[in-house]
């Protein structure tokens, strides 16, 4: 059994495993863990991953359901993580994070002159994802995964 499995077992909630250590804190940010005041939370880092043969991080959160917005964001940052949905102490479902074909209000277009980047207009961004390339629906600007690091839109909900 991997060491991380022994830590902070939860009855109901989510386990995100095999997170590359360099993006663990970004995933923590996406899940807004700081704001969560109920339910057990375990965070581990620098554990050994047999899956990747590298150091990994994991997050276990009790009484938490992942929204599709959170799933999409995690997929954008680290598409290879494993997401387990836990119910009554058992893994009910295994999900893999996958970047959806359409990202509405998730990432900004990289073109500063795009109409969707004009603050006064309050237009929700609309980005298509196909064959590892992002394309802005409005201005047709294309960009790759490396270029989206600073493009993630803060969730204001």
């Amino acid at each position, binding site marked *: 059994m991997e060491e991380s499995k022994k830590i902070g077992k939860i009855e109901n909630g989510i386990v995100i495993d095999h997170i590359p250590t360099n993006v663990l804190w970004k995933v923590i940010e996406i899940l807004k863990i700081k704001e969560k005041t109920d339910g057990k939370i375990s965070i581990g880092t620098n554990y050994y991953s047999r899956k990747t043969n590298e150091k990994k991080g994991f997050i276990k959160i009790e009484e938490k359901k992942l929204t599709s917005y959170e799933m999409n964001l995690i997929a954008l940052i680290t598409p290879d993580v494993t997401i387990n949905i836990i119910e009554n102490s058992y893994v009910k479902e295994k999900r893999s994070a996958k970047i959806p074909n359409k990202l509405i209000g998730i990432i900004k*277009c990289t*073109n500063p*002159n*795009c*109409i*969707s980047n*004009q603050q*006064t*207009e*309050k*237009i929700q961004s609309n980005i298509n994802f196909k064959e590892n390339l992002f394309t*802005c*629906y*409005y*201005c*047709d*600007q*294309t960009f790759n995964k490396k270029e989206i690091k600073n493009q993630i839109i803060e969730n204001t909900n």
Partner: protein
Amino acid sequence: METNFLKRDIISIEDFSRKELDYIINYAKEIKNNPENFKEIMKHKTMISLFFENSTRTATSFKMAMLQLGGNVMEFNSQTSSLKKGETLKDTLKMMDGYSPDVVVMRHPNDGSIKFASHILNAPIINAGDGQNQHPTQTMLDLFSIKEITGKINETKIAIVGDLKYGRTAHSLAIALSKYENCKIHFISPESLKVPKKFIDALKEKNIEFSEHNLSELKNIINNIDILYMTRIQRERFPIGKEGEEEYKKISKIYSLKKELLENVKSDFRIMHPLPKIFEIEEEIDKTPFAYYFKQAANGLHIRKALLNLITQNGRI
């Protein structure tokens, strides 16, 4: 498959098939040859002209097109509008749409603004330029002019010269020519204004032969082409400050087409330019039979007449 232009938004040249482009070009030719037959065709139709940026040729030719077809034009002035009071583009468009125009023609400084507007408006919209992004009626009038010059668009041998990094007319024309057979493009530019890699990669996927050259190579190419398509190099494309200024001046000196260069060109060779031209074509050339740019600009009138009519009432082909 039957195509229908009725109520269609004209946003990007990429949205049009070869068959549709040919239809628009042929219809524009019919209007150009027989203006009398079309002078009342847009009677009781109204176009709202929304120009959020300055324009000489595009705004005037759309207005003239509508008036010469017997239609009405309502012009919007962004300088005296509620935009100055902070009204959003969305609200401005919703209000304009409430006046039930038959067609809206819009130019706006932001890329993608026309596509956004097309979702707000019920009336069809024609893109008259959205930032650095698209200007489809310019490309259509370019194709129309090429056909007028050489009698066909297939097998066009063209050199596109100037600012190929930012120049939207150059990119759109290349995309449009890739819809035709056996065309060849020579891209000629200063090193700092070369065609972006992303665009080159996209073009490799298309049906078009092309090559890239420095400005000094124009003299080796000019005698073997049908069309020389010149574009303007803008000062604002160079860095602010002394270094940028010097680079701009250096390129301006090299980048000026001289009459001597035209001594051995083909007899039906012509020079096109989307205008305005500043220093890139020596004035002497205007008087030669090779200068086609003013006729090219005038062709915008016929293309715009064709589109206005097709999308407001005569849609089916």
